[in-house]
């Protein structure tokens, strides 16, 4: 289907381009990679609002049990389960994945490697349409008899497999179908990303001239596609258990519930790195631009990422240390889990070395990038505690785990997303965002974020179990001290949510009223900054030729401190 499809598609698109397209045709059925990227981004941001709203509702219930939550109502036990389940699934599958991989991947890959569009534009559109369908199915699951699924985002059977246990007969199935559809969407998108990055690079761009964020998105896509097969198989089996009455995961019928855990976590752990890598890539682009320095150890980072990708496939059982797996097997997974912190630490050290001696400019994107480094570091360090199988017996399913993975996922999904948004906003919308509001938003997010999750480490160490909707029922956990910490975390959370209005205002007002952005506002090297902001359909008036790597900043002998990749002579 390859070559012919491409030419046909681009012909068709260009013919349409000359007469004015209707709004619907242009923004809903476009095959242009930038439009599809924006569709993913807006859908992801909308889902972030839903996920944040759910978190608000259950955090209020934890801090003030039984209270009627403003803008929500009372949260009962079943509803609490539904809220935490869907908060988790939405934030990972419908926020982190679409924004970090699909949105930034779609917008950046063709622009950064210097081509006019994806290799398979129609597959790209199909990918978004399936993704949108998955969103619709997920929303349907909230409104069926019994309400949305409440068996946690990990969906362990037999709870998730038998309707008499989870009490959400159709909610559970629709949730599962939504997740499966979302996987199909990213499978199609990922094939496109990898093929495009390998096959459509501008002349002269060698493998090691590809900007790090493109590499990271490509590697994340490959990891996603290599790990998702088992979970698709598992989802089909679980769906059959729910709807047809098979007993693959139901012990009473001869099935094995631990099998699901293996299939789920074989995907679930690489998934962490799937979303981490694009965020690391975004941070690399921003740090080199605002430190005016070459990326320290491009090849080291690249090979280290390969190592991470390989190791990520052999750590999954550290999620199952107390599921009754053989302790000898637990030992193996302990070793691999601790091993994987080495390549990640190496990448972070390379980033710090990139900053060392640079002329750092604290613009908003740079603040977010540095915020990523610092908060992610805490997440990584606490992971070492959880990775050791002995400590995990105590920490498992406690708030320590919650705090740990929010210290990894929040920097990835939220801080990484904002870093990328502030950095590429001028390119995406052709206007600059307000710096002051951006900085207020940064501090108003990063300080309350630590206010939420640092205390949760403490309650976790005090033994507070997750998935309990009202701690007043447990005398050991209902003490005034612990309740005070919970209230503090919730207040921090509400504060953080309120500061997001600053972002919303800045985002939408700048889109129409912001200062017009030049083609290269940050004086950056990569190819997307050589085209007008916003880029025209087809991106490049003349396809660029690449002469050097993407991070040639402050090169001695040049008049300017940046040296665009497509500039033949000294700058």
């Amino acid at each position, binding site marked *: *289907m*390859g*070559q*012919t499809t*491409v*030419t046909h598609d*681009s*012909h068709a698109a260009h013919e349409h*381009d000359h007469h*004015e397209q209707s709004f619907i045709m*242009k923004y809903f059925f*476009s095959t*242009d990679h930038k*439009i599809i990227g924006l569709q993913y981004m807006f859908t992801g941001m909308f889902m972030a609002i839903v996920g944040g709203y759910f978190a608000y509702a259950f955090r209020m219930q934890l801090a003030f049990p039984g209270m009627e939550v403003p803008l929500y109502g009372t949260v009962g036990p079943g509803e609490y389960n539904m809220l935490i389940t869907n908060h988790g699934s939405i934030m990972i599958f419908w926020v982190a994945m679409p924004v970090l991989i699909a949105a930034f991947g779609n917008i950046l890959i063709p622009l950064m490697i210097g*081509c*006019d569009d994806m290799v*398979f534009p129609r597959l790209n559109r199909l990918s978004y349409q399936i993704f949108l369908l998955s969103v619709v199915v997920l929303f349907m699951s909230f409104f069926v008899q019994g309400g949305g699924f409440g068996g946690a985002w990990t969906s362990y059977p037999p709870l998730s497999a038998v309707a008499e246990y989870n009490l959400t007969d159709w909610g559970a199935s629709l949730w599962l179908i939504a997740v499966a559809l979302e996987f199909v969407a990213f499978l199609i998108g*990922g094939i*496109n990303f*990898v*093929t495009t990055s*390998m*096959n*459509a690079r501008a*002349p002269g761009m060698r493998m090691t001239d590809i900007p790090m964020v493109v590499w990271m998105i490509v590697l994340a896509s*490959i990891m996603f*596609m*290599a*790990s*998702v*097969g*088992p*979970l*698709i*198989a*598992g989802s*089909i089996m679980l769906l*059959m258990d729910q709807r*047809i009455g*098979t*007993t*693959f995961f139901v012990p009473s*019928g*001869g*099935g*094995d519930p631990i*099998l699901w855990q293996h*299939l789920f976590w*074989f995907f679930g752990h690489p998934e962490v790195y799937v979303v981490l890598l694009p965020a690391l890539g975004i941070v690399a682009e921003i740090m080199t631009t605002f430190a005016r320095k070459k990326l320290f150890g491009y090849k080291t980072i690249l090979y280290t990422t390969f190592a991470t990708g390989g190791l990520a496939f052999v750590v999954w059982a550290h999620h199952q240390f107390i599921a009754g797996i053989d302790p000898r097997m637990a030992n193996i997974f302990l070793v691999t889990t601790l091993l994987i912190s080495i390549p990640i630490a190496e990448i972070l050290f390379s980033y710090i070395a990139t900053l060392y001696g640079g002329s750092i400019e604290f613009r908003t994107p740079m603040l977010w990038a540095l915020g990523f480094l610092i908060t992610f570091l805490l997440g990584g360090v606490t992971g070492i505690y959880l990775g050791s199988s002995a400590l995990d017996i105590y920490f498992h399913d406690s708030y320590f785990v919650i705090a740990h993975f929010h210290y990894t996922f929040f920097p990835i999904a939220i801080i990484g997303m904002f870093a990328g948004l502030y950095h590429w906003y001028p390119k995406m*919308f*052709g206007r600059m965002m307000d710096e002051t509001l951006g900085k207020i938003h940064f501090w108003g997010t990063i300080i309350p974020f630590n206010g939420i999750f640092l205390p949760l480490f403490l309650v976790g160490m005090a033994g507070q179990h997750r998935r309990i909707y009202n701690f007043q029922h447990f005398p050991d956990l209902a003490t005034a001290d612990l309740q005070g910490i919970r209230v503090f975390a919730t207040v921090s959370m509400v504060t953080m949510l309120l500061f997001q209005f600053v972002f919303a205002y800045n985002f939408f007002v700048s*889109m*129409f009223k912001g200062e017009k952005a030049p083609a290269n506002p940050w004086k950056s090297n990569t190819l997307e900054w050589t085209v007008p902001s*916003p880029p*025209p*359909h*087809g*991106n490049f*008036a003349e*396809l660029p030729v690449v002469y050097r790597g993407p991070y040639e900043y402050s090169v001695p002998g040049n008049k300017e401190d940046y040296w665009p990749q497509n500039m033949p002579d000294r700058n």
Partner: protein
Amino acid sequence: MILLVAPEIPANSNAERRQLVSSSIFATVILIMTEVMFFAALISAYMIIRSGSEEWPPWGQPRLPVFATALNSLALLASAFCLHQSVKVFSSQALRSKQLLALTIALGTVFVSVQGYEWVQLISFGLTITSSTYGGVFYLIIGAHGLHVIGGLLALLACLKRLNSTSQQLTIDNLRAAQIFWYFVVGVWPVLYTLVYLL
């Protein structure tokens, strides 16, 4: 209105792609990586469920038709051979290539039809998807493979259709992509047959 696509600047059509390997082949290979992992999961699920049960096949459940399926497998293997020949003579002998492609599709259809007939009989003997985990994994794995055969057949049919059409010419890369997928479908079958029928 925010104009992300400014129409006044002439767009670059027919952009030259410097392909490492043909994009359609590349994409198919990546898809097959996912498929391999998918079947690996089904196989491991089969082995785990089987090792957890006391008697396999469980008492009272019918045995699988080992010999008839072996014969049927020959049809599938022969189809891969035909496709190999078809691709080989694609540029030199167009008519022969087309005939061989049609033969490939015919053999694939025979395989799926005989499998379907086998299922009808097994169901009448009392092996259903809910009769035991034995029935469950059997229909799951063989069904997943059957769907892949049907998918592969559809891809080959699309190739055949484009061979006949004048507006959309079939390129060798398109056919190769379909060929790779078909080889995967044929190649995974002996593994599944050995696992589910023989062991």
